[in-house]
């Protein structure tokens, strides 16, 4: 309708009634400056508006400084910090990111509400302004110092060695009573504790923890460098947080490498699977929203109506923890429709070239004649008659395939066996040359001529600890006594895709629910309609076929935080790999859980680990560390074989998880600190006195039984850590799975553990059980922080840290290809100091005290067998042999850890900390198996930052500030130093025989300086440190170098590995991707079954996804976030579960299981599925947490209801891609298989 028509039908417009007109008109008298409309309805002002000035004044500011936030959120957003009158006022996002090009959205603005509220902390009432020491300890220390001739080390000794005194201060940890101290006194206590522990117990009894270097590598490196210089251990984080997808090292041989968020734009089919993009990838979510307009189809797979479902074209809601079943069914459809019923050229070519599908696997009969998949057939097995590779150095690590061209087995280029030996030079590549691989044996034998039945485990029907199997046929070829098939044939058997002429049980069609891995089979498990599962799988593949691989799966914590997440991920990666999407822009896996990607990798690696002064470092997988040292191992009621398939050779029989850890430590698979039941300084000294090397001495002593691995007696007084230091971390308020066990055994304070210790008949076989478990193991808990957390509350010493707007640092993420900077907007207020300076202060005092107590000593470091090194060649065929049982000799670096002597001048720790040591020039830098010679780059830093005039670092480049540490990282990494990248590629060209150096040539002259990154975020350079290419300004996608330049993956076959033939994987039933349901906590621990209710309480699956108002540990108590959230700890529940036990929205509830008790408010919502509760991650007990009705103690945190559960296969090492590297391979701190009981508090008037 037009206004003209309105005019005809309506009365003359105007404001109603004359009286009102008059009254409105009277406003003129109040507002003489105004002009008023004729109908007196409007008032307009122009000019001279004094009343506006308030807002103009408020907006004014003196300066704007660029910084960012040191958080593990994957954001790495650049922010403007506003300063007025010397005070930080607020922040807003920077918008000056380098452009991805004219036809794409931009990265601007990046940020989220959490980041936008950070400035509150600067002056918040919870800011740590001064050093604090536990009052009870400070009194003891002052007295002890007076009584010990003012020697702080002897004073510390007199306290911690006196059980009554130790008890006095340990038992009141966390219960208030922190008192202000001077920096000098606080640091003296800390340094004394370190010197004492190193001297009397061993440097490997100290440990430091700081997570996620990418979120501020300089701060990370500060304490890490100190610990490595003195011989302490550093704890891993990526695996501990369960953010590491173990499937990645298992199948790609890579820690994690994923596309930047901008690459989502290039995808035309996007599944978000267990990854709630708007909430957890807030600054990146727009790429997904915008890509939909670009014609992308979006699928959300989430058990609840998650925020991302709003954007999805379709929502599949599988029951929690059953995602693997859904993916297996999709794999079934893809294998059947795109590989068996028809051939899809693009997929077919891809899998033959880039995956292990054509590789030969030997089928091994057991004593009853049942065939099971066994080991890869290698050049050694084929023998010299069949291949010239059989006589080469690493022939055992050269798996073979069937060459149709010669109709015989052949070893292609690019296997692990080509990677290190001289004869592999120029052959470590994926060029098949004249080989024409047979995907199936049926191709080799021109149809199915010979077939056998293989038995495969299935886990969907078996009770925990029981085993069901299915029998399916595969075509085989026989070579002498060896019966072989291909991985592809095994995959079809596993997925249940039949072919005419094969024996065994097969699905009749998609609707056959009895046959594992069909669409109908998954429906019974997941609740997703079979038609939908089949259709989405088909669409994903069809899109990949039509777009040449541009189908993508964003996968996240919702699927990765489970016990069997590695298998769940392998079922997803089957989809991405079969469809040729890996190594393609817009395709592949996109795992974003944790900000793991430190783009300037090499510089950080060497700075943080002090590799410029001493090698090797001590690095420990944190999950294992706390599983043992918080004594959670004592509460496992089951053996390792409860988790296995029992399909193997009974390798886990009678073993507990602790036994598996001890074995892993003594075989050198995984690190374990403390390593031996003696001080390594004393061991080295004893060796020297005996005229032997430490390695010889240790082997002799172990054989004689006079020396033991500490892991075999973890509760002995000398076998656990004594100092735990944290910075940039809040383990006790956040990541401590089994938080209450930490309080009990590590700290020695009240707790709400109600679990019972393991009964005698289920206790470990090889690990000693002590009747009394120690409580209060740790002598010193130190934290550096700028706010009060659960961890600072429990600490013995708290040092005031600079905030993220008060220091220099760097930030990078996997989500965007830029380097950002932290810069101080104000100088550090009160008595706070930046982390680099704080650890320098501690190092200085330590060095001073060491002059009396330590001097220079020899240390012996037990280093596990390393990934990306020839250590990965130590377990032929993945066959496990243990020297302890006489199965082989103990040989350091082969069948047990490497034992490396290291000289440490403890009086020079400060000098070393503050200068770049000589080893970079004398020994080069190493990363990802590439050696960089960096003399000229170090020389540049000498000129840039000046040289040290005296002391241990004389003549070396200065490293005395956070800013100079940043220069170390930027100047000595390929991604930020174009010359270094090119030099690295040239090295790689020699090994691979492929052209690579052109990838970074366009930036060869580029040196990213701190000033560059301060001015605006700077794009990084394509470098051999990573697997993707950004050359020509393309978006980063992993493995594009592998696919386009034929560079092998760092795996056994050099290809994507569908199949893993290590003994423990066969034992676990994890040789092939398969569906593994969540752990049955009823069977394992006697917890109730989900859904059990007595009318007042109900058992639910307990999940801890990320929190909208507090991603990770740094935020929860923030005033603004609390106002937008519910103002305290909450647990989200479904309407059905809440109503079943009389819980209404916002009621106080308690969640209780054997691990602890949580007090929270209920948020009841119909977007939650029945049977599942969410307690969002990292909700702190520092704010609004009452005393519980259950125990009368303060309620716990989200991790008070969880505990550490270790999957034995994550302990494997020394074999191909299954070899240790820090944060690369190790047990995950998974926490999603847990259940809890929830009930409404009878008294809703809570007490604090």
């Amino acid at each position: 309708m037009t206004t003209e028509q309105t005019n005809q039908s309506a009365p003359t417009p105007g404001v109603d009634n004359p009286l009102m007109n008059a009254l409105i008109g009277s406003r003129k008298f109040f507002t003489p400056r105004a002009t008023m409309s004729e109908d007196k309805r409007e008032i307009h002002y122009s000019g001279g508006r004094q009343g506006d000035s308030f807002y103009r004044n408020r907006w004014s500011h003196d300066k704007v400084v660029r910084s960012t936030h040191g958080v593990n959120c994957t954001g790495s957003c650049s922010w403007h910090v506003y300063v007025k009158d010397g005070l930080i006022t607020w922040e807003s996002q920077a918008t000056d990111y380098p452009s991805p090009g004219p036809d794409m959205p931009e990265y601007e603005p990046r940020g989220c509400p959490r980041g936008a509220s950070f400035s509150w902390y600067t002056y918040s009432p919870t800011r740590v302004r001064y050093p604090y020491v536990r009052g009870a300890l400070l009194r003891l220390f002052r007295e002890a110092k007076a009584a010990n001739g003012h020697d702080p080390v002897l004073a510390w000794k007199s306290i911690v060695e006196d059980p009554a005194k130790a008890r006095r201060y340990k038992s009141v940890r966390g219960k208030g009573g922190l008192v202000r101290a001077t920096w000098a006194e606080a640091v003296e206590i800390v340094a004394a504790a370190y010197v004492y522990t190193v001297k009397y117990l061993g440097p490997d009894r100290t440990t430091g923890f700081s997570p996620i270097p990418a979120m501020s590598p300089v701060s990370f490196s500060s304490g890490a460098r100190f610990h490595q210089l003195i011989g302490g251990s550093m704890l891993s984080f990526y695996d501990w947080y369960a953010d590491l997808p173990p499937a990645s090292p298992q199948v790609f041989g890579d820690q994690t490498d994923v596309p930047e968020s901008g690459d989502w734009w290039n995808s035309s089919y996007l599944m978000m699977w267990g990854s709630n993009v708007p909430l957890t990838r807030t600054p990146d979510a727009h790429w997904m929203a915008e890509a939909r307009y670009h014609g992308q189809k979006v699928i959300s797979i989430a058990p609840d109506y998650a925020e991302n479902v709003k954007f999805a074209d379709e929502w599949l809601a599988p029951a929690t923890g059953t995602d693997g079943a859904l993916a297996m069914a999709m794999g079934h459809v893809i294998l059947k429709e795109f590989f068996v019923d028809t051939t899809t050229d693009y997929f077919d070519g891809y899998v033959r070239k880039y995956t292990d599908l054509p590789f030969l696997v030997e089928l091994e009969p057991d004593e009853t004649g049942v065939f099971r998949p066994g080991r890869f057939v290698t050049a050694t097995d084929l023998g010299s008659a069949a291949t010239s590779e059989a006589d080469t150095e690493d022939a055992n690590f050269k798996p073979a395939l069937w060459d149709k061209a010669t109709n015989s087995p052949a070893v292609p280029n690019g296997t692990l066996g080509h990677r290190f030996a001289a004869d592999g030079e120029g052959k470590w590549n994926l060029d098949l040359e004249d080989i024409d691989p047979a995907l199936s044996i049926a191709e080799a034998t021109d149809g199915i001529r010979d077939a056998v039945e293989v038995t495969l485990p299935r886990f969907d029907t078996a009770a925990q600890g029981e085993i069901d199997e299915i029998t399916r046929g595969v075509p085989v070829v026989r070579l002498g006594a060896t019966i072989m098939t291909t991985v592809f044939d095994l995959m079809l058997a596993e997925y249940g895709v039949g072919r005419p002429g094969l024996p065994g049980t097969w699905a009749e069609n998609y609707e056959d629910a009895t046959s594992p891995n069909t669409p109908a089979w998954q429906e019974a498990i997941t609740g997703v309609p079979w038609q939908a599962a089949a259709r989405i799988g088909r669409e994903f593949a069809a899109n990949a076929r039509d777009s040449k691989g541009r189908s993508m799966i964003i996968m996240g914590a919702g699927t990765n935080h489970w016990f069997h997440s590695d298998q769940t991920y392998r079922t997803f990666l089957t989809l991405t790999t079969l469809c040729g999407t890996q190594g393609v822009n817009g395709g592949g896996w996109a795992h974003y859980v944790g900000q793991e990607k430190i783009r300037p990798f090499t510089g950080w690696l060497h700075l943080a680990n002090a590799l410029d002064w001493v090698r090797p470092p001590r690095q420990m997988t944190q999950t294992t560390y706390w599983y043992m040292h918080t004594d959670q191992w004592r509460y496992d009621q089951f053996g390792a074989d409860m988790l296995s398939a029992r399909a193997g050779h009974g390798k886990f029989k009678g073993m507990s998880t602790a036994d598996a850890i001890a074995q892993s430590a003594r075989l050198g698979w995984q690190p374990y600190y403390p390593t031996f039941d003696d001080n390594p300084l004393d061991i080295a000294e004893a060796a020297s006195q005996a005229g032997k090397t430490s390695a010889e001495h240790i082997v002799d002593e172990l054989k004689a039984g006079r020396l033991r691995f500490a892991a075999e007696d973890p509760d002995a007084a000398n076998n656990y850590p004594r100092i735990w230091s944290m910075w940039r971390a809040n383990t006790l308020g956040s990541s401590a799975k089994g938080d209450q066990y930490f309080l009990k055994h590590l700290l020695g304070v009240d707790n709400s553990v109600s679990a019972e210790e393991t009964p005698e008949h289920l206790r470990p076989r090889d690990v000693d059980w002590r009747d009394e478990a120690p409580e209060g193991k740790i002598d010193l808990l130190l934290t550096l922080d700028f706010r009060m957390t659960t961890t600072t509350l429990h600490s013995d010493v708290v040092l005031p840290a600079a905030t993220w707007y008060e220091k220099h640092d760097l930030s990078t993420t996997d989500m965007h290809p830029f380097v950002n900077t932290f810069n101080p907007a104000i100088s550090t207020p009160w008595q706070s100091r930046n982390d680099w300076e704080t650890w320098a202060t501690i190092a200085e005092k330590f060095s001073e005290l060491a002059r009396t107590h330590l001097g220079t000593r020899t240390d012996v470091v037990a280093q596990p067998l390393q990934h990306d090194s020839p250590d990965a060649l130590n377990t032929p065929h993945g066959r496990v042999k243990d020297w302890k049982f006489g199965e082989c000799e103990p040989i350091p670096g082969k069948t047990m850890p490497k034992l490396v002597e290291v000289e440490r001048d403890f009086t020079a720790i400060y000098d070393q900390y503050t200068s770049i040591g000589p080893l970079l020039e004398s020994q080069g830098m190493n990363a990802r198996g590439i050696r960089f010679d960096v003399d000229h780059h170090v020389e540049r830093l000498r000129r840039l930052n000046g040289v040290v005039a005296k002391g241990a670092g004389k003549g070396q480049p200065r490293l005395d500030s956070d800013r100079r540490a940043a220069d170390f990282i930027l100047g000595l990494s390929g991604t930020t130093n174009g010359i270094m990248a090119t030099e690295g590629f040239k090295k790689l060209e020699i090994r691979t025989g492929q052209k690579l150096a052109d990838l970074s040539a366009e930036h060869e002259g580029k040196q990213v300086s701190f000033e560059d990154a301060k001015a605006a975020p700077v794009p990084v350079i394509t470098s051999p440190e990573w697997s993707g290419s950004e050359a020509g300004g393309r978006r980063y996608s992993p493995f594009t170098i592998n696919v386009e330049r034929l560079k092998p993956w760092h795996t056994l076959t050099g290809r994507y590995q569908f199949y893993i033939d290590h003994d423990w994987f066969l034992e676990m039933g994890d040789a092939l991707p398969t569906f593994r349901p969540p752990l049955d906590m009823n069977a394992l621990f006697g917890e109730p079954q989900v859904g059990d209710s007595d009318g007042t309480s109900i058992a639910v699956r307990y999940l801890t996804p990320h929190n909208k108002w507090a991603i990770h540990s740094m935020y929860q108590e923030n005033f603004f976030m609390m106002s937008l959230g519910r103002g305290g700890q909450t647990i989200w529940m479904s309407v059905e579960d809440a109503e079943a036990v009389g819980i209404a929205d916002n009621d106080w509830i308690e969640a209780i299981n054997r691990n602890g008790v949580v007090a929270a408010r209920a948020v009841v919502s119909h977007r939650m599925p029945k049977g599942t509760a969410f307690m969002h991650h990292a909700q702190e007990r520092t704010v609004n947490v009452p005393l519980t009705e259950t125990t009368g103690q303060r309620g716990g945190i989200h991790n008070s209801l969880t505990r550490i559960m270790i999957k034995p296969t994550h302990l494997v090492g020394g074999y191909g891609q299954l070899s240790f590297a820090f944060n690369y391979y190790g047990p995950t701190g998974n926490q999603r298989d847990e259940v809890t009981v929830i009930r409404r508090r009878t008294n809703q008037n809570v007490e604090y």
Partner: protein
Amino acid sequence: MRIMAQMAMVMNLDKCIGCHTCSVTCKQAWTNRKGTEYVWFNNVETRPGQGYPRGYEDQEKWQGGWALSKNGRLKLKAGGKLKKLASIFSNPKLPGIEDYYEPWSYEYDNLLSAPEQKHIPTAPPKSLLTGERMDIKWSGNWDDDLGGTYAKADLDPMLKSIGDKVKLEFEETFMFYLPRICEHCLNPSCVASCPSGAIYKREEDGIVLVDQDSCRGWRMCISGCPYKKIYFNHRTGKAEKCTFCYPRIENGEPTVCAETCVGRLRYIGLVFYDADKVTEAASVPDEKDLFAAQKDLILDPHDPDVMDAAERAGIPHDWIMAAQRSPVYKLIKEYDLALPLHPEYRTMPMVWYIPPLSPVVDVVKDTGYDAENAVNLFAAIDELRIPIEYLANLFTAGDTDVVADVLRRMAAMRAFMRDINMGVEPDVRIPHAVGMTPESMEEMYRLLAIAKYDERY
């Protein structure tokens, strides 16, 4: 014709991720101070939900905005000035603090200062108004992501008329986010409600402001605004509201909420309107005609007559240029995507919304349609999870056809662009089916998807 320039905003709800960054940056910049603790010039509501302050859309209760009198003329819904003056010291149509929320903080000091004691220290909540310990029971964002919504569905005024069509159950779940600032209306009822004449529309850009010197704290504006986007500063005793960040706008910068919007869904631009026609447009009898009437007020900045009139009205040349390249104008008038929030309030609001496309087909039902057909990759409009009636209640006074047309254009754009994305010849019938050309559809796509900084503002 009396041409006036208006600074206006469009928010594309289809891109909103509900992160509340806009709220936080706005609050940090403007209302992070005593007297405005409970005030969020910018807030984001989960819908369905009650909003902030709760139930503000229930004009039967709050009597905000305009109504037509018996003779078809505009009157303040809350009544004329006589009634106002009579009740000036006890305004009954004012939301109480409990309708916003009682702002709180915590005894944070306790964490550092607690002496050695039995339990781990914690920081209990305390009221920022009274300083006393308090029980947290409501906030400005209480029902975020549908928390507790199931039990209070009847308190969402938009659900009332369609209650029989909407089930708040797991399988039927839908939600979207509605970020809100002051509407900077062409026909602001707050201005007309103020007995002091302290609220005004800026001559040059139409931004509605409260003159802090003139405000006498009558709070009639709070009642008069149907969006409840004027707040009372309990410390200064004055009304405060979103200023469209004029100190930034005057420097050529977008508003804080827009620039910090991580979803990149906010567009700011200038539009010209004929001020002489506002009252008439606001007075059309049928509520469902208000949207068209409001849209018609906006003038074509490329029309030579309009350009001429603008120049004569003293509007600078670069402002005319700005109106011509205004993304807001394009989204409202050229692509017919943006809709006003609650046109039935007759205030002629100038913050417009593109409704959310939510083509999620039912999770439980068999959806075995042909996946090979590109168009079928996207579910049809009639399978939306968000009931179209709900959107119509928000944006078109209940006219579902208008909303369906918008959503159809968005869906058509996706189908059209998919072919281009896949390297296939695009089907020109798709844009034609929704009254567009392939060229205009691709331009629209660029504005919605590529949306570079310079094109958004």
